[in-house]
């Protein structure tokens, strides 16, 4: 066991981990922050996406020990300071971009990373960016719509589909 320290959602945290402990395990079991989900074991599904030093990372493929001193942001850190839903979260609710909620944390974290790099993505750009995030419930229609709405684009034409 080795101690590792990092910042999660602005809060300094530390814990003893094995060499094989994944960031997803460190967050879920070590920190009891269970918003980050694990939906596969081959880094395909994207339910576990968090931000590490501002970049979207699949936390099931990052070793906790490699992240000494890192700044980590998870779904628990995405709401506004007053506790209200952030812009992307609110767009997901407004446009029914989630059903069972299991892939949702990863979707929101990926969407945030996309919009940081590409503030006005086209529908096709959203779809291609989400290649690493699988949703089984929504058929993606309302996820894509929510992300485009969160970027400030008019989605009323999509609503008419």
């Amino acid at each position, binding site marked *: 066991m080795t101690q590792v320290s990092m910042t999660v959602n602005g809060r300094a945290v530390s814990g003893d981990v094995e060499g094989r402990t994944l960031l997803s395990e460190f967050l879920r079991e070590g920190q009891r922050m269970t*918003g980050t989900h694990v*939906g596969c074991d081959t880094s395909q599904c994207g339910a576990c996406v968090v931000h590490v030093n501002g970049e979207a990372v699949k936390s099931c493929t990052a070793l906790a020990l490699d992240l000494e001193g890192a700044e980590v942001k998870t779904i628990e850190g995405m709401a506004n300071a007053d506790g209200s*839903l952030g812009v992307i979260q609110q767009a*997901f609710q407004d446009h029914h971009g989630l059903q069972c909620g299991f892939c*949702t944390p990863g979707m929101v974290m990926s969407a945030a990373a996309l919009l940081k790099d590409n503030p006005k993505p086209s529908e096709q750009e959203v779809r291609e960016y989400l290649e690493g995030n699988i949703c*089984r419930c929504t058929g993606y229609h309302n*996820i894509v719509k929510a992300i485009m709405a969160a970027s400030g684009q008019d989605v009323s034409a999509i609503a008419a589909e």
Partner: protein
Amino acid sequence: MPKDSGIGASSKRREDVRFLTGQGRYTDDINLLGQAYVHFLRSDVAHGVLKNVDTSAAAAMPGVVRIFTGADFEGVGGVPCGWQVTDKHGEPMQEPAHPILAQGKVRYVGDAIAAVVADSPEQARDAAEAIMLDIDELPAVVDMKAAVQDGATKVHDDLTSNLCYDWGFVEENKPAVDAAFEAAAHVTTLELVNNRLSPNPMEPRVAVGDYATGTDDSTLYTTSQNPHVIRLLMGAFVLGIPEHKLRVVAPDVGGGFGSKIFHYVEEAFVTFAAKQVKRPVKWTSSRSEAFITDAHGRDHVTKIELALDADNNFTGIRTETYANMGAYLSTFAPSIPTWLHGTLMAGNYKTPNIYVNVKAVFTNTVPVDAYRGAGRPEATFQLERVVDKAARELGVDPIELRRQNFITEFPYATPVAVEYDTGDYEGTMTKLLEMIDRDGFEARRAESAANGKLRGMGVNCYIEACGIAPSALVGQLGARAGLYESATVRVNATGGLVVMTGSHSHGQGHETSFAQVVADMIGIPEDQVEIVHGDTANTPMGMGTYGSRSIAVGGSAMVRATEKIIAKAKKIAAHLMEAAEGDIELKDGAFSVAGTDKSVAWGDVTLAAYVPHNYPLEEIEPGLEETAFYDPNNFTYPAGAYACEVEIDPDTGKVEIMSFAAADDFGNVINPMIVEGQVHGGLAQGIGQALLENVSYDENGQLLSASYMDYTMPRADDVPMFKVDHSSATPCTHNPLGVKGCGEAGAIGSPPSVVNAVVDALQRAGHTDVTHIDMPLTPARVWSAMQN
């Protein structure tokens, strides 16, 4: 104008806030004090004699609490099957035992052999690797038709063969059906495969068992669509725990699609083991484990024949299907290819003579059971493919051929044992044609051609039987359980209320839509209504959520309970206003006396019920809490018409969905936003089946598609924006909300239009010999079809 609350409003989902902020509570988020972890050692061969399981080295590994093998479960029941099918000779199906851990033999890759309970999941996994197995491998039974040949290796030595049942439906009709074929002017025949799928909810299964030594109470936390069914099956048939000493909790569940209906061995194991080791025991499935343990879906091999007279009227349908059961009978497996498949073979058409034969077969593969649609997609696919093929052979428009044969008068008794209460197939087809600009297709095709692509359009209809199910009917058909639903409405003194429902929500948004119904009935804000589900300790006995039944059956129970509440509240209001009960009206949350200006608010009445100082105690009890159980008297019959346009790259065979339109008749709709979301998700699963997904076994029974790198899940760029409409609606005639259910329609209705569209594109491009390609229509399969 759209409503802003109540029935018919697109109320935003209240459950979203917790899911969007990481505050959901899924089963894997539950850790109990002192919890141990189990890792299952699973068979890596498909079939073999289990000669020895040596756990001695593993037992000495760090952190190991105890190792269980099949020997620990001698005298413990296996997981039961909940439906018995009677074969065409009147004999019961063959029904093998399904032990918690393998005894004597392993029967599929994934069959659990031993279970290591340890202090950490890593220690459990490490120790499982140290267990020494001695297995004499046997030939694997994989191909269904080979499995039922004389002399085939048997999956179960104690059964007479690998044939579970040979079902004829309706057997007495067969001579008339054969005669219709003799007399036919044209017969179209199609042989096809309905590909095997893995349901793949994004949340893998999890089970946590807990045992209280002081009270002898057992608790199971599990990823289930129906916690009461699990409590009944596991308590009564497996572990012998009376229901009052067993609690089953299914908290937030991350999707199910059928795969979380069934009672799995892991649930029984953790409950059993927790009592043995006196610690909570937790199991979390990996995705790889999910592929080899979650029940698969579909897997039919079918020959269908359609007879037509000289005027192109359908006169007969005859089918023969081999349906894979896998190695054991999962909870509802026998009912899927029979009562959820044969009964839908009439589709939307008035075909007078129908005969369905299904041979259910045991193989050395993962058990097969319900997956979104469950039997109805298989019926729809073969019927809508053979109708399309017939239109092509006859040189008639496929839409006109369908229209000509539509059922137009309701109620309609089909020749396959069900009675459609209502429908308007012309209505949904007309709506579909408004949505798809069929006249513009040639121009779009020309544009595709200019880009070197082949374009095609496919259309199909579907019907499904939902709102499962009338208990008396399914009892006659072999169900070993009732299929009613329940609700308790508990009104609080200050007027807010809680509905405890036997239904379960795992993505469907019941906490929002159910509240809309009750709030609308009473005339109070939706936020005054809380929906509680998923815990046998605080919900009435209910059968759970599957078969698009929640609003039609569970919602109806809730309406009945709310009606009882309103009736009692009116008595209280009459007393408070010193008026006759018959004169009391409830509107917008207030009771008034007809023809007067007297009124009392909802909250005044509820307070009086719990503070009964001025109260008719001699006539009615204090309090305001009512329970209702609702058993429907028929299925509901959602139906619709779907259309798909595809482009094919002739150089690669890759199919791209250019547009997809769905016109559904769901009867009345509670929350249009949620209903449309259900359709979107179903469409993506149906398109996934048509183009991408396939569970593949090699001849040794090794699963070749056991991860997301091998099993192609639909991604965001595989599907288009969908056009959906549910305005052509004929309300259900026999439930109080007039609702039909919408959960499965998309997955049932979409595969045939995709395949019809691909065949259309290839035919238009001159590949006239291509009349069918089996799903999934991968680039390799489409390209190969074009080369012949």
